[in-house]
Every structure is written in structure tokens, then in C-alpha cells.
């Protein structure tokens, strides 16, 4: 069976106008994602994990290498790769249901069809009763639920999530982790999820891709042994194996951060 997403020898460099230097953000990234899989990407800050996601989304062009989705090379943004952003990105002049139905509107889906899809996703993310609210009337957590529903409603092949929980308070973040896990099973979609939180990466992912310090490379890919259905807070913390893996990922990233610090110190 072909991979859902294949990243092959991806290199990204860009020109920094302020320092007048060419910066290598990602060097030679390769990994694959299976259909229906939940893969999380974690790494030290500045390792280029968000850049990697926007390359897959087609919002930027790679300097070398290629990205295949269902065997087709990515050349720009498209409806097959939905994205959830850290900054929510839902439109303030659209109500909750207008935001959720936006992708379908773009695809010129009929009003009746749209309404039934909207109703389904409103229910999935638990926003019944808020359909006609504007985003400013919602909390951060609710806004991000709208963004998730909007992305899923457009029926993408893969869902890219760029630190979607980073702008939320700690309590909401934990609740939404469980929600995303549940939604991922319910919607049966392929998810690529970028985070800087080890806890989040290990809790959500079927596999965790650890990126090295800048310039980013795939350092290690860790498989999480428990299934997504089994993971719950707080019982997950009683799982010895889970805690060991978390510790391993944490150490792996910490090592990168320390080495990055040494490099910087030597330069200085």
C-alpha cells in the first residue's frame, strides 16, 4: 500500500533580508505517514518543524526534495491538505457555521448538503448552540474547535496541525488533546501534528518524529505502543511504558538543545 504522505529529501533554505544571509532551515528530511495514522513532529524551538508543515501544506516551496500525497507531488496549497493553525485563523466576519462551511462553499457544495455536513461537525466538536456566534464571542478553545471542524468539513486527505494548542491555557490544552484524539478516531483521517510539547507529542501520536536542532533533520522516529483508544488523562501517567517513552523523547530533545547551546557558545 502506498504511503499517504511521503517526504523525500526535503531541503529548505531562505534568504534573511535583515542579516543578508541564506539560512538553511531544513536539511534532508525524509519520512512517511500511513493512511489513518496520527504522526506528531516534535523538536527544539527553531528546528524548522512549522516550516516543514507549511512546505507540506504547499504554502512555501522547498529548495530541494519532494512531498507526495497519495503518490502525487505537492506543488501548492490544496483542499487535499487541510491545516489548523496556532493562531486559529478562522474568519472574524463569519459565524461559527459559516466558518465551518467555508471549504464547502469554496467547493460550491449545495446549501442543503452543506448544512448537514456543518451540523455533523458542529456536533463532533461539541459546539451545538453556538452555530450563529461570531468568533469574538468564543473562548480560545472554542475558536480552535471551530478551526478543526472547518478543516475536517472540507474533507481533506490529510490534516496538518501546526501547534494548534500552543495558544491555549493549560486546562483547555489538556481537554482539547483528548478531544483531538477522539475526533481523529471518529473522522478517521490522517493527521500530521507539530508541537513543542513532548507530553502532547507522545500522548497524541501513533509515531513521534523527533527533529534535530537547527538546521532540522529527522533524528529519530519513535513508535508509541498503546493504541489511541486506550489513552486517557490521567490514567495514561500510570502506564510505565508510556512514561519511559516520554522520558526517552524528552532526553533526546534535551540533548539537541544542549548541543545547540554549545554550538552557539562556540560561535560567540
Amino acid at each position, binding site marked *: 500500500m502506498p504511503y499517504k504522505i511521503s517526504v523525500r529529501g526535503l531541503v529548505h533554505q531562505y534568504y534573511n533580508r535583515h542579516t543578508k544571509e541564506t539560512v538553511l532551515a531544513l536539511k534532508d528530511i525524509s519520512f512517511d505517514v500511513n493512511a489513518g495514522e496520527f504522526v506528531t513532529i516534535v523538536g527544539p524551538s527553531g528546528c524548522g518543524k512549522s516550516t516543514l508543515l*507549511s512546505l507540506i*501544506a*504547499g*504554502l512555501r516551496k522547498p529548495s530541494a526534495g519532494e512531498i507526495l500525497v497519495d503518490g502525487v507531488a505537492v506543488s501548492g*496549497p*490544496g*483542499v487535499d*491538505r*487541510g*491545516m489548523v*493553525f496556532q*493562531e486559529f*485563523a*478562522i*474568519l*472574524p*466576519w463569519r459565524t461559527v457555521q459559516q466558518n465551518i462551511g*467555508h*471549504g464547502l462553499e*469554496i*467547493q460550491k457544495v449545495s446549501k442543503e448538503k452543506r448544512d448537514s455536513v456543518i451540523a455533523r461537525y458542529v456536533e463532533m466538536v461539541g459546539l451545538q448552540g453556538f452555530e450563529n456566534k*461570531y*468568533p*469574538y*464571542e468564543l473562548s480560545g478553545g472554542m475558536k480552535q474547535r471551530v*478551526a478543526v471542524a*472547518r*478543516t475536517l468539513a*472540507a474533507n481533506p486527505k490529510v490534516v*496538518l496541525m501546526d501547534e494548534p494548542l500552543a495558544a491555549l491555557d493549560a486546562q483547555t490544552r489538556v481537554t482539547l488533546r483528548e478531544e483531538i484524539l477522539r475526533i481523529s478516531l471518529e473522522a478517521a483521517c490522517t493527521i500530521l501534528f507539530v508541537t513543542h510539547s513532548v507530553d502532547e507529542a507522545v500522548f497524541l501520536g501513533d509515531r513521534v518524529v523527533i527533529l534535530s536542532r537547527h538546521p532540522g533533520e529527522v533524528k529519530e522516529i519513535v513508535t508509541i505502543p498503546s493504541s489511541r483508544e486506550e489513552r486517557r488523562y490521567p490514567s495514561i501517567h500510570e502506564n510505565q511504558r508510556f512514561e519511559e517513552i516520554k522520558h526517552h523523547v524528552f532526553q533526546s530533545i534535551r540533548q539537541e538543545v544542549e548541543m545547540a547551546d554549545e554550538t552557539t557558545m562556540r560561535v560567540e
Partner: protein
Amino acid sequence: MAATLEAASAKPKAIKLTPDGSSLWERLFFAVGPYLFLILLWEGLRRLLHADASTMPSLWSAVEAIGRVAANGILPDYIFHSLERITVAGSISVVIGVSVGITIGLNATAAALFLPVIRYFNSLAGIAWLPLFLIWFGFNDKTIILSISYNLFFPVVFNTIIGIRTVPKVFRQGVLTLGGSWRDVVFGVMLPGALPNVISGIRLGVAYGWRALIASEMLLGLGGIGYMIFKAQANDLTDRILAGMLLIGILWSLMDYLILQPLEEATIRRWGLVRR
């Protein structure tokens, strides 16, 4: 100790930062209070300086003057002229200004080409063009309308550009990842996203245009509120000058209240883009 406890249990007094949601009397006070102060200031100064009616007429005599010009039919005619001119000029400048602003806001080449020129001409006050407009178009409405349009244009253009440029990038990216085309981004994101700035640009522009209207009416002598003031000065009708000035403010406030504010209310406030 008991005193502290008592103080702590006392109901804290609500702090009101805005007059919103307060009683009718309070709202009346906030609506009328500032004007009442200005009226008292004017009347107080008149008495203090022992000013005679031909230098500083009483506000009441100005109101009487309004009644007189209203009764003899000059006023409705002049108000109609002024409003007609600002409406025509406003429509022209808003259409051109918003279109130019969108083009420049979206397109870096257009910005590089036209922005310096627009900035240059913005520095030339509309009234500086009046002599040339007079030579080109003569003593008629075209000259007045052009001079208003000129002043109205710049705030509209600059605010539209800012509006387009400050639409968060992530809004665009979001729509692109929903499968949106360039058209979806422009009409679904950039234009509604720029709307708050466009509307404040129009509001500011109409205010500038209104001033240009009064100034050019004074100079051209083709009727209108500006002309009424100018003519009154020549005839030593100080109360009528004051009446004209009051009317300029009142007409402006009415326009703002009846047209521009509801426009803002209907869109950006409902979306929560401007804090209530």
C-alpha cells in the same frame, strides 16, 4: 480589626469606564453636557468681554438667524446644494479611492509605482488646486466637486491600503488550505478584512471633503452653506455667520450619525473587530 472586616465585606462600588448601559439621565448628561459647557463658555465670554452683537452675537440670535434664512427659503436651497455636492464627490472618491487602495495594497509593483506619487499629491492641499480648477472648469459645480473629491480621496486610499496590508497572513493561508483560489482570497478575506479601515477612511475622508466643500463654496459664490457664511460677512450679518457655522457642525453630525455610523455598526462592530 472590626473596621477592616467591615470594609472588606462592604459591597465594592462598581467602576464605570464608559457611559454605556447607564441610566437615561446619565446618557442625557453625556450627550448634552459637553455642548452645554460650550454654550456657557461662549455666553460667559460675551458678557466678560462686553462684546456687542456685531462681533460676538448671542447663540440665541444665531438660532433666530437660522429661523429667518429657513423661512425665506435660502437655507433649504443652500443645504440641498451642499449635500448634493458632498454626495456626488463622496461617491466618486470612494469608488476610485477604494479601487486604487485595493490595487496598491495587493500588488507590490502597483505600490512601488503609484504610492510615491499619491504621497506627493496628498501634500498639496485640495484648496491649492482651486485656482487651476477655476481656470480649467470655470465658476461652476465641477470645480467645487473636484476640490471635495480631491480631499476625500487620500484618507480613503491610505486607509484602504493599510486595511489590505494588515489582514493577518494566516487568514489567507487558512483559505488557501481550504482549497480557496486567488479570487476566494481577495473577495473572501482581503476585502472583508480591510473593511474596518476602509470605513474609517471613508469617515475621515468625508470629514476632509466637508471642509473642502465649505472652503470652495466660500470662494466660488455658487450657493451652499459656505457661501452663506461668506456673504453674511460681506453684509455684516454676524449672527448669520454664527448660524452657518452651527449648521456646518450640525449637518456633519447628522451625516455621520445617520449614514457613516450605521455603516460601521452593520459590519465591523457586529464582527467584534472594533471593541464595543
